[in-house]
């Protein structure tokens, strides 16, 4: 089960890096945070899980979405 969640986290991280649509990247990062929180709960670290869920899935998502609204959504090909 841990291996499954870890490989999902890895896949979401790679997707967030490679995806050209930055909004999709943010949603992938948010899902990655939720999976990490689940993993921390299963490894009996509920303190870290609360922090990860509140900061990773809550606050940073708001900040990233705000940053995208004020810049641009698509990543340009370099």
């Amino acid at each position, binding site marked *: 089960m841990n291996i499954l969640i870890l490989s999902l986290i890895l896949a979401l991280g790679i997707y967030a890096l490679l995806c050209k649509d930055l909004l999709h990247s943010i949603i992938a990062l948010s899902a990655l945070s939720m999976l990490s929180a689940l993993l921390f709960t299963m490894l009996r670290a*509920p*303190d870290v*899980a*609360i*922090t990860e869920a*509140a*900061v990773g899935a*809550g*606050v940073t998502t*708001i*900040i990233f979405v*705000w940053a995208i*609204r*004020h810049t641009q959504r698509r990543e340009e090909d370099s």
Partner: protein
Amino acid sequence: MKYINTAKQIIAILLVCLVVGVVIISEHSWPEGARDYLFAHAFEDTGATNTVSAIYLGYRAMDTLGETLVLLVAITGTMAILVNLGKDTIEEEAVHFCLPPEKRAKNALRTHLLEVVSSKLGPIVLLFGFYVMLYGHISPGGGFQGGVIVASSIVFLALGTETKSKLTNTVVLSRIEAIAFLALVLASISGVFFETGFFGNPIKPETDLSANFIILLNIIIGLKVGTSIATMCIAMMGGRHDL
């Protein structure tokens, strides 16, 4: 050009293997001395049942002060950038989530779903945040965790309700933040007068009341973290730039 990129990728993979492989291959057992010591002594020394709280507010409270300072500097820098940003593009760019509908910019995305869900969810999340903050010495949680949950509930309330409240006013929030930081500094030097040193527990250990210092520090840190992150998020959403 293509060969250079391929070479870069190969070097990156090799470096990752170098870092991760050492951890996987190594047969050195995990250190257990600190764990056993904390398991035996943490409750008597600090009065906190939750060992994580005992570490970061009892043994290593100095690190918590440093972390709070780092957060303070980060928020100060963000607010400085935001205030200067508001001067140039004051009305067009800022998305006014917090204003009533007739004063809001046209591109502000506020649907009925967002208003209903966030305004109903906000108070419950606020209560849960204060629970996590106040019971940090017993159950999982603490000042930082509870503070971030309080901050997200304030953002929910700012998104969901049209009425102006003092909870979503950045001036009030930043004043609470300043008072909380002053209280943290005062609480940190309070141990000096009771012969326990900087950040020492002023209440004698091995009494029933010795966890109260942990509770006090949790409340102060929770208010500090919660109000500062809420101030930053509301200012980012174009709430009020006048600080």
